[in-house]
């Protein structure tokens, strides 16, 4: 029976939890900050003391609506809060304030760019807001500690439709979502700090002999890195297929339903999680302590207006407007600041090509060295545009440009001042330049002869001589003048 043709389609949906970067928590005025000593950012409300009441942080709602708008969601005018009940030590009230049937955002989509240059539309079922739980700390074998600094932090849960069919698609969707929430400024989306967590739902639709077999849906809980997400989906697809081969009839969605698995980071496999004794019944019901959230047209309009240009639209524009290659354009939309720098510098009159070369050249290298984004180097649009214009006008050569960038990053200052201070301005005295060119020709008779003869090595030899002139001049010779002089002197024969 293994002779029959078998088609396997992976079905993957993704739940993404994003902690929002509001100043304060969702329902109290405690500071929302990662990394403080345990239980220092807490108050009676977020630790659920008897008799206290939640008060909604409307900034968190605004942030959620921005994400919904960017995901092309409907933003219903009426949504409400519900209580989700379960007993857990890190959940102070033993219920979580969440949203059940009327979320803030629903029915949207995101066009996700894939590595092969194509893109795929992933539908978004809903995005709802809730309060995060605290954290159990198992650093002492004698007891478990509970840190409630995170309890009550606003958490946006984005639920996709099962529209992804490969681990790469799941990964691309997750990465695009990270870029998006950062772009909107609603989350730092820092994986190490737990700002983003993934829960993929995975199963297979296997067609053989005209029959479609569906494997049980597995939800892998609490993945907190892209690597874990990709690994978990990859492993599940293999595991489910292998298990299905052993028992095509029994290993089915109908018989086994849904199950939860965890991720073992050491062994790179998903592992079975013991089912809770009681089947999960969260007993959702409307939160009586909070009024419904009413989003009127004016609010919706101000959200729409605040979104601005989104990454993919900006990429298209850069390609058209500045003739960037698709790799270059992609680099320019890594985050909002990077593209803003390009936009602002060109608006000040700098030639786009020069700006892009500076950004993706020395600046990019410096950002990599520092481990920060291009926009965070501290180079302003004014500095960048002045530098690009000086290069364009031949007042500097490329090497000098790079030196000035390094100097600006380290010490600030305008390119013109720095060039003066470091003596980097190109020599405008033709006699001096001519002297350097003559020196270079005299010192390198063989390449000079090759240029004169115009043989196949002429081009390479010409470049070599240009470099020699630059070296002799200490980088101050203007390249265009050098080229002109070399050409005239070596073809005059």
């Amino acid at each position, binding site marked *: 029976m293994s002779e029959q043709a078998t088609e396997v389609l992976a079905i993957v949906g993704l739940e993404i939890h994003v902690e929002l970067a509001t100043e304060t928590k969702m329902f109290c005025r405690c500071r929302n900050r990662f990394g403080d000593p345990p239980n220092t950012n807490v108050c009676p409300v977020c630790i*659920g003391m008897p008799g206290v009441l939640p008060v909604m942080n409307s900034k968190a709602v605004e942030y959620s609506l921005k994400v919904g708008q960017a995901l092309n969601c409907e933003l219903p005018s009426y949504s409400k809060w519900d209580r989700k009940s379960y007993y857990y*030590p890190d959940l102070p009230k033993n219920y979580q304030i969440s949203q059940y049937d009327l979320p803030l955002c629903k029915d949207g989509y995101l066009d996700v760019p894939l590595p092969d240059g194509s893109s795929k539309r992933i539908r978004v079922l809903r995005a709802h807001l809730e309060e995060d739980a605290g954290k159990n700390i198992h650093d002492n074998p004698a007891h478990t500690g509970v840190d409630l600094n995170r309890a009550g932090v606003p958490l946006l849960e984005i639920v996709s439709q099962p529209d992804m069919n490969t681990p790469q698609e799941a990964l691309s969707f997750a990465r695009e979502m990270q870029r998006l929430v950062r772009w909107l400024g609603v989350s730092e989306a820092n994986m190490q700090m737990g700002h983003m967590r993934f829960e993929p739902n995975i199963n297979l639709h296997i067609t053989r002999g005209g029959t479609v077999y569906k494997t049980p849906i597995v939800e892998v809980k609490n993945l907190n890195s892209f690597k874990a997400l990709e690994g978990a989906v990859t492993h599940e697809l293999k595991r489910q297929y292998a298990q299905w081969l052993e028992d095509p009839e029994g290993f089915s969605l109908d018989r086994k339903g849904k199950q939860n698995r965890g991720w073992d980071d050491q062994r790179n496999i998903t592992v079975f999680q013991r089912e809770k004794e009681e089947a999960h019944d969260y007993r959702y*019901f409307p939160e009586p302590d909070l009024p419904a959230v009413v989003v009127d047209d004016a609010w919706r309009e101000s959200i729409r207006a605040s979104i601005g240009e989104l990454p993919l639209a900006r990429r298209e524009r850069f390609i058209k407007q500045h003739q960037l290659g698709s790799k270059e354009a992609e680099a320019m939309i890594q985050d909002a600041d990077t593209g803003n720098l390009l936009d602002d510098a060109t608006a000040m009159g700098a030639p786009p090509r020069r700006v892009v070369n500076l950004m993706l050249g020395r600046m990019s290298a410096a950002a990599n060295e520092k481990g920060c984004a291009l926009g965070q180097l501290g180079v302003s649009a004014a500095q960048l545009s002045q530098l690009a214009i000086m290069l364009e006008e031949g007042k500097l050569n490329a090497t000098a440009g790079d030196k000035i960038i390094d100097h600006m990053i380290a010490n600030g200052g305008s390119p013109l001042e720095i060039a003066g201070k470091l003596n980097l301005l190109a020599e405008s005295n033709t006699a001096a330049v001519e002297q350097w060119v003559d020196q270079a020709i005299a010192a390198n008779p063989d390449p000079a002869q090759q240029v004169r003869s115009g043989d196949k090595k002429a081009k390479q030899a010409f470049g070599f001589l240009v470099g020699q002139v630059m070296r002799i001049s200490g980088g101050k010779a203007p390249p265009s003048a050098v080229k002109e002089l070399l050409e005239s002197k070596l073809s005059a024969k």
Partner: protein
Amino acid sequence: MNNLLKLSALELKNAISRGDTTATEALEAYLHEISVQDGALRAYNEVLVDEARDQARRIDDMRKIGESPGLLAGIPIAIKNNLCTTWGRTTCSSKMLANFRAPYTATAVARIRQAGAVVLGKTNMDEFAMGSSTENSAHGASVNPWDLSRVPGGSSGGSASAVAGSLCSAALGSDTGGSIRQPAALCGIVGLKPTYGRVSRYGLVAYGSSLDQIGPMTRDVADCAAVMNVIAGHDPADATSLDRPVPDYLANLDEPIKGLRIGLPREFLSDALDPEIHRAIENAVEVYRSLGAEVKEVSLPHSRIDSGAGGELSSFAVACYYIVATAEASSNLARYDGVHYGHRTERDAADIIDLYSRSRAEGFGDEVKRRIMLGTYVLSSGYYDAYYLKALKVRRLIKNDFDEAFETCDILLCPTTPSPAFKMNEKTADPLEMYLADIYTISVNLAGVPAISIPVGLSSRNLPIGMQLIGGVFREDVVLRAARMFEKASGICRLTPPPLGRDAE
């Protein structure tokens, strides 16, 4: 009995501001009375002597230097033990919270203190406000000053007993299904449940969050209005408290409402009603007629009370209430698990679930457990639609009935309770019978409207009978003025129970 104890709260305040007496002198009179009488009434869980003396001294000092110490200056007020205070304990009369000390004070309590009131102590209640007799208290039952073998009603029974027994000048209670009005009726005092959202719930330990309201329990209507002037109003810490201006409830209190339109809900004046109560209500209606009120019958069909073949009563409203309130309670009380809050078992637990189970089994009383189980059941998957969702629909219909009635009436008039105070242990064996003690008060909470209970007379056994006046949303002013009209015209006001032990000698 010290004559100071006979004054109403406003009279006492005036006596203090005239310099006839001092806050400290009044406080000491009450503390003495408590020491003599509370052994019998058991109205208090805790008397907060030091804090009360400090506050009384502060009020007297302020007066000495000519500062105005506030609307309730020097008035000794008792507060129900589910209102959080940073001093003393807030136990909700439960073993679960036997040692709970809140790091915050309920907004309503903070406001009366700000207005100069002296908080005497925390009064006994049915555990977590669940009950109608104050017999469900971990501290033992309170007693009705009118008949020591009878209950004071509940759940704010300690507050009612303290007001009626002159162990405080006024009190705060909380009302989820009748817990202010029913004990007020049974103890012959005035009790007001405000519109939902009129008084902040911040610092009130939650029972049924969509129903709970804090309100005054006083000797007469004017005291009730005075306390409302202080506790009503928006609180940013309670998202369900409404930001609407608060009228001066005392301003026109004595002016009768011309052409007052009174509706008599047909459903609440059936033959099933105790005949003495029926007669007392009819008399009250006559008093209003004589004052020029226009009286007519109205219908609240979804608050209807049905009698079964065996005479047993049932009501949509009671059924609806016991779904909504218990559902909310099951969630509100989930945090008392011995790990986050509340009593923790001292026995060895196998795992954390076992720890939760044992702690809750030991910490909660039977009625609380009953309601948590009921609430958990009605919210469970597979039952939600049949119970909780249906109850929400019934609640909407009940509210619509009230809205419709208030299109043609200013107030609705009906009994507060189906009978006067019942005997201790009379209803403890049958929870359903106990639930029916709130049969006339419950739909008011479901509708969210304000209602007051005032005394309208005494039964042949010399037990107080209460009348309930229900107003439209935010019409506490109308309710209070209408109540004052009756009080003034009938002279039925400040009923005094027969002397207790010491004075009877």
